[in-house]
């Protein structure tokens, strides 16, 4: 049995009165890639955002059930969401470079803004993170240029490098390639495979081929329910639920 890094137990997420995620129990294995697939509005992004408490700022959202990180409930009383988010990072659908910062400043923002001043250490972290995000060669000669001048695919890899720079244990990715062209998508998929040894990844994707290509395990969501979960290969070749089969064979969604 592989160790679990995270786990949800009967997780339900309410938007006002409506449950966007219903009673989902999902294991997240350590240093594996878990993909969440399903049609638009099925709750996969809502589920993902519950894992690092990104719903906290939205007063109409209510969480029931448990989200465990290394066995501890991240929603328990007295747990600081800032600490959770430091351990569980996130990359969003659209690239989000910080507009006033250079490439270098963007990558080390998570360290610099909490008071790390050591230039050498920052430079070292920036290089390591940019290499991990497969962007180092493209930007190493212009680290002091504004990050907003980069292409969409490069900006998204900046976002990934920035998330990696704080060395999270888990990286949540919300459709990280949906706004990108095929070549940038390819670059990021390759990168996911490379990152696997260092960090646990949960990725939401619209693109079933992507889930099949990169993930070890896949969960299929529909209308807020988790319909099926299993090893990716098994789920795609031999789905247990007919709704999963209908979805992956393109009969809806």
């Amino acid at each position, binding site marked *: 049995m592989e160790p679990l890094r995270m786990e949800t137990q009967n997780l339900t997420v309410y938007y006002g009165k409506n449950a966007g995620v219903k009673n989902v129990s999902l294991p997240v294995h350590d240093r594996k890639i878990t993909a969440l697939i399903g049609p638009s509005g099925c709750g996969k992004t809502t589920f993902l955002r519950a894992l690092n408490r990104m719903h906290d700022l939205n007063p109409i959202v209510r969480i029931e059930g448990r989200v465990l990180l290394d066995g501890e409930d991240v929603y328990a009383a007295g747990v600081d969401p800032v600490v959770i*988010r430091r351990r569980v990072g996130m990359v969003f659908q659209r690239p*989000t470079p910080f507009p006033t910062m250079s490439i270098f400043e963007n990558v080390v923002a998570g360290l610099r803004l909490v008071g790390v001043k050591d230039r050498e250490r920052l430079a070292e972290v920036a290089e390591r993170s940019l290499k991990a995000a497969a962007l180092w060669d493209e930007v190493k000669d212009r680290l002091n240029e504004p990050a907003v001048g980069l292409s969409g695919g490069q900006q998204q890899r900046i976002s990934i490098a920035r998330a990696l720079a704080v060395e999270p244990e888990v990286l949540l990715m919300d459709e990280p390639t949906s706004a990108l062209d095929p070549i940038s998508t390819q670059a990021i998929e390759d990168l996911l495979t490379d990152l696997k040894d260092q960090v646990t990844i949960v990725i939401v994707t619209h693109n079933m081929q992507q889930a099949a290509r990169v993930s070890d395990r896949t969960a299929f969501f529909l209308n807020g329910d988790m319909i099926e979960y299993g090893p990716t290969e098994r789920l795609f070749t031999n789905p247990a639920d007919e709704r999963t089969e209908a979805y992956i064979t393109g009969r809806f969604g």
Partner: protein
Amino acid sequence: MNLRRRYLRDRLMVALVYLGTLLVLLPLLFILGYVFVKGIGALNWDFFTKPPAPPGEPGGGMLPAIVGTFVIDLMALAMGGLLGLGGGVLMAEYPEHPLNRPLRLVANVLGGIPAILMGLFAFVFVVVPMGGFSAFSGSVALAILMIPIIMRATEEVLRILPWELREAGLALGLPRWRVTLSLILPAAKGGIVTGLLLALARAAGEAAPLLFTAFGNPFISFDPLGPMDSLPLKIYVYAISPYEEWIRQAWGAALLLALLLMVTNFLARRALRRS
């Protein structure tokens, strides 16, 4: 045939738009032109370097009022800017905060109160308790005038920034205040400066809030706790005086004030474009 009529109609509409623009611009050009013609004669070396002459005597200048304008307005900007910025940030960045609704109400009510009442407020709550007219009390009145303008401008420019920017910061494990301070405010810097300058320009043109607060002072003063002069005040006092020389200088002061406000507005727009 039909097409020709459409071209004709198009031209007619464009002409109407130009006409409307002209009609709107005319009063502005007229006011500025008139102030310029009447005021330019009063602007000389003495005007900028000398205190006022005794009533009825020729000569004298506006130096105390010029100095006072800067002192009073900058103090007001410091106070109004701080509070207005704080309110705007709270409204935009902490929408769930319980202070939000009262704050919005205050902003709306303050925005609709006539400027002279700001002066009255400062008179009752600053001048009377402190026992005398002062530049500080005038600054308080102007600051209150600025607060709703700055608050709204700040809130607006912060709301333009995508929400994802905040989430990206939070997802790095940054505390919320750090996201606001280091990510959001720098990104909105240009717009915020614009809001501050526009509020300053608005307040700097007001005489009413200063009538029974800063009060006016014929001598140069840097003492924030004593009475101080200001250009709008000087214009008001001189314009209704019976002395020809004073009325002439009132026009000069009006021109100087108009120029200062135009420069401020120009800077505000430039700050906005830069961002």
